[in-house]
């Protein structure tokens, strides 16, 4: 790991305030060339705000940014690109209705509104070939590509801009192991040729493989920057969350073999995305679903809630086979399912409406409940410790964590038999996560069942009684007890377990 004299990017005294919320508070941050700098932190820690500042999407409330020792004003993404600061955001920036070629052209470094020359496309083709995307046709519409293919194109688009600083924000979340390896090789090459690389991921094995330097953020501040290897896994987690990982989670009760079956799914199949999946959930259980993005776990959960057409297979609730035609049917007392969707801002809540209106929306359709009765929600709101300035304020005024609490309270008012949660703690701060874990366990203890889709190993390990890992539409591993370890989860997610052992035998 070599350090060049002058850092490529230096941020000094950076603060970012959104009204009363301090996303970043007096942060100093350096990025050097020829270095892969990993940024770790819980969501709400300020990582994505930091990246948005570098990318020119946001401007700091105070503090300054220097590139090559000179003060710059990154007033827009265009300005940031001019300085060679290229960011690959988690939400892909590809235009779905244009072709791959057109998207790449659009992203080229010196493209304005005029004629787009095709130079740079060869470079992109090379990059794609190197990361396993040689069969992606340039004439194909992006909307027709799979998610891994889109991530590959996004990477090529970023490299094509010849960045001086490359930010990768969860850029490989859907890619298979072999492709990820190739991407890492590419990143190392970029680093060696003088680029600075900022790498955000919450997958430790990736950090281990790639990072030279690691910075940990917590609560809007940079906790520490250190070379890889200086601290072990436990210490790093401690830095990220401010306490021991075990303290975040409520204790797991012992397995009860006598528990009755609440949900039994047999042979759920949908398109080629969910292939003959079986699942049994007992009363009082928290069951986890894991795997890389888009391996079928999300679709499976949606299928349970009646959001998919033409699913095959049987679903039985407390012994009675039912066909769930949609969310309206799913929330009725005879079925009793609740679904907390992945994207709380666009799917879980109606941001423009008040907290109260959001709380009542699910209960309104239940004839047996009086949606306007505050008592329906009082218990959940108290247990979740919702912080608000008045129930008639728009729900957009709440922090991300509190917003998620509203979504939960909305559904808990219906006293569901089985709660389906799609990555509920994504983008949520640590304190709220703890509160959510606690209430989930309480619910389970009181007799409800919980199916939790998570991209966080710790959740699967510490919170769930058992975890099922999806790969390519099937459950490839069902882990519980002593088997429920990070290594096993990762191996199953990347589908490398048996083959790798065989190769090394």
């Amino acid at each position, binding site marked *: 790991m070599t350090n060049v004299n002058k850092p490529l990017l230096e941020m000094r005294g950076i603060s970012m305030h959104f009204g009363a919320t301090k996303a970043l508070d007096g942060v100093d941050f350096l990025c050097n060339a020829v270095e892969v700098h990993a940024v770790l932190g819980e969501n709400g820690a300020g990582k994505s705000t930091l990246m948005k500042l570098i990318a020119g*999407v946001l401007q700091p409330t105070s503090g300054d940014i220097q590139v090559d020792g000179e003060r710059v004003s990154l007033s827009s993404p265009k300005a940031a690109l001019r300085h060679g600061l290229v960011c690959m955001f988690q939400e892909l920036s590809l235009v779905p209705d244009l072709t791959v070629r057109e998207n790449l052209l659009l992203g080229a470094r010196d493209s304005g509104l005029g004629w787009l020359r095709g130079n740079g496309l060869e470079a992109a083709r090379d990059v794609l070939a190197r990361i396993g995307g040689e069969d992606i046709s340039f004439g194909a519409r992006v909307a*027709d590509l799979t998610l891994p293919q889109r991530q590959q194109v996004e990477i090529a688009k970023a490299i094509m801009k010849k960045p001086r600083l490359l930010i990768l924000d969860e850029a490989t979340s859907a890619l298979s192991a072999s492709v990820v390896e190739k991407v890492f090789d590419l990143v190392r090459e970029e680093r060696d040729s003088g680029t600075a690389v900022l790498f955000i991921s919450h997958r430790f094995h990736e950090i281990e493989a790639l990072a030279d330097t690691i910075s940990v953020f917590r609560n809007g501040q940079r906790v520490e920057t250190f070379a890889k290897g200086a601290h072990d896994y436990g210490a790093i987690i401690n830095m990220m969350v401010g306490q021991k990982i075990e303290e975040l989670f409520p204790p797991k009760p012992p397995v009860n073999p006598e528990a009755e079956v609440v949900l039994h799914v047999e042979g759920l199949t949908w398109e080629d995305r969910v292939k003959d999946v079986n699942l049994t959930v007992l009363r009082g259980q928290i069951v986890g679903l894991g795997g890389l993005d888009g391996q079928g776990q999300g679709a499976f959960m949606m299928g349970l809630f009646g959001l998919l*057409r033409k699913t095959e297979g049987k679903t039985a609730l407390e012994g009675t086979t039912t066909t769930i035609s949609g969310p309206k049917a799913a929330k009725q007392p005879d079925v009793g399912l609740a679904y907390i969707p992945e994207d709380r801002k666009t799917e879980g809540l109606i941001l423009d409406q008040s907290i109260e209106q959001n709380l009542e929306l699910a209960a309104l359709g239940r004839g047996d409940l009086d949606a306007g009765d505050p008592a329906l929600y009082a218990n959940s709101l108290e247990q979740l410790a919702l912080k608000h300035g008045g129930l008639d304020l728009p729900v957009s005024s709440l922090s991300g964590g509190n917003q998620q609490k509203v979504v939960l309270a909305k559904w808990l008012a219906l006293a569901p038999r089985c709660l389906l949660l799609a990555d509920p703690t994504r983008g949520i701060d640590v304190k709220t996560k703890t509160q959510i874990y606690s209430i989930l366990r309480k619910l389970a203890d009181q007799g409800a069942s919980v199916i939790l889709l998570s991209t966080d190993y710790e959740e699967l390990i510490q919170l769930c009684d058992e975890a099922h890992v999806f790969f390519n539409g099937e459950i490839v591993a069902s882990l519980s007890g002593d088997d429920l370890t990070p290594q096993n989860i990762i191996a199953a997610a990347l589908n490398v377990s048996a083959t790798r052992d065989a190769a090394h035998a």
Partner: protein
Amino acid sequence: MLDYAKSNRREVIAAAVLIVLLTIYLGTHPRGASTYVMTIWANQCLILGLAACAQFFAVVVRGIDLSVGAVMALTNTIASYLLDGSPAGIAMGMVAVVGAGALCGLLNGVIVVFGRIQPIVVTLATASVFVGLALLLRPTPGGAVNYDLADAMTLDVLGIPTALVITAVVVFAFWLPFRRTGLGLGLYALGSSEQAAFQSGIDTRLVRLAAFTLAGVFAGLAGLFYSFVTTTGDAGIGPGFTLNSIAAVVLGGVLLRGGVGSLVGALAGAFILKTIASLMFFSGIPSLAQPLFEGLILAGAIAIGGADVLRARNKLEVFK
């Protein structure tokens, strides 16, 4: 080639439908597939086609332009004053007419972008203003357009209707190159996802202004060509064209949510609409029943286009 077909399946379908319809039309027309018939057909198609192009630019950036007809009326009335006289004067007049259209579009764009008001509402109001201006110019239809020029534009060139030549010019000399500029792609990016476009470094305000201005330019061209066809200025031509331009772009595969479709599709949709109307006229269906048939066919075509949504396996896909 196959890639192109897959990427632009809606346009391909529209083009195929058009060819079928045209064949039927020429086959059933009493005067057959003559230049005369084709010319009249082509002229009608081009007027709506240019209006549909105007609408395309507004729709592709997730907006809509309810002033297309009004701008046509205004530019048509302006043309009825300027397009008679010396060749130099006429040439400048044509530029002025299109320029007027561009100004109208720019006004729409400015109010949308800087006034931060929804396009549907802005263009509703500006349409009123433009129609009023047109009425000031021509309270009753009148005026004149140089006959030689009008003939040149609306007859044929070596047996091919001039209108079709103009269409070809628009597609090959304007659209195809434009599609490869940053602005051209920027329109799609903006319509697809304003946030993503912004993050990619696109100046969203400029692109939106350009989109509405282009809409005005094409509405001006439509009004200009209309004046060649009718050689008069008429302030009342607006309403039919506005609504038909929306129907045309939808038929041609341009989605109202933005980011999808092409100018070619808009043209195809307009041509299809006009061909159906012409078919009706010569089909022997009683004239009283023709509007109903047209309405049914329009509704049917739109419903079929919408039905592919029924195939969506994930119920959430229909919500955008």
